[in-house]
């Protein structure tokens, strides 16, 4: 599998590590309650098909990426910098 990093370009998957589903971008409020936190931390679908995950380009630019990909075909559909998805800090 290869991932096209928005900064580094087309790279071998060995340069990346996976965190998990993009659910991690939607952290509940501290007082959201046990059900919300249980959901956030533990409950995941296991889709056969398209999904969106967080990957870290640790052996490259050190950016967090949101990768849309197909778990059946291993096709990578779209890759974004997480900060562009969340509107996080941006030097530009």
């Amino acid at each position, binding site marked *: 599998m290869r991932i096209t990093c928005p900064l580094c*370009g087309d790279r071998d998957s060995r340069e990346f590590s996976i965190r998990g589903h993009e659910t991690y971008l939607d952290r509940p409020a501290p007082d959201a309650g046990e059900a919300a936190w249980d959901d956030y931390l533990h409950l995941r679908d296991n889709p056969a098909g398209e999904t969106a995950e967080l990957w870290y380009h640790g*052996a490259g*630019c050190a950016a967090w990426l949101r990768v849309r990909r197909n778990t059946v075909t291993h096709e990578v559909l779209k890759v974004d910098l997480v900060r562009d998805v969340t509107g996080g800090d941006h*030097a530009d």
Partner: protein
Amino acid sequence: MARLIAKSAASGLLPIRIGTVTLTEETPAAITALMPFAGKPRALSVALKAAHGVAFPGPNRSSAKGGTRVCWSGLDQAFLIGDPAQADLADHAALVDQTDAWAVLHLEGEDAAEVLARLTPISLSRDSFKRGHAARSLLGHMTALIIRTGAQGFTILIFRSMAATATHELDVAMRGVAARAALQPPP
């Protein structure tokens, strides 16, 4: 009182020459990480140009002026390699001295790309990885910053603690490429 002796990262290991390829160590006076503050990349680039003659590089790019090189080194980060960063750059960016954190190796020669290709997953084709191009990637299991400095030359930055491993890995790759070349009769 103890007298301290400065040793370079690859002291006693380099230079080596095998086949057409030479591996040497460079010892820049300083390596400074430049990390522009929010909204400041342009101001940093202007100040960098005035102070050191080089602009802040875009992703995967490097340029040099005199003995000082600037090289993109990751998300919102570049390394200034050579002269110590002038103090006024701190108005626009976080500056971190990394001089002793890196081993700076230089691989040069006709088969340099063949040697490096044995250790890194990136394409080193002269069409896609040209002079002035740079990449954060792997050298074996080590994270590296690889810069093409010429048609047959690459500068490779490796964590200083891995200098001996990197030198060994490159030595083995150089031997492999030279041995293979020796098996092939000249055309």
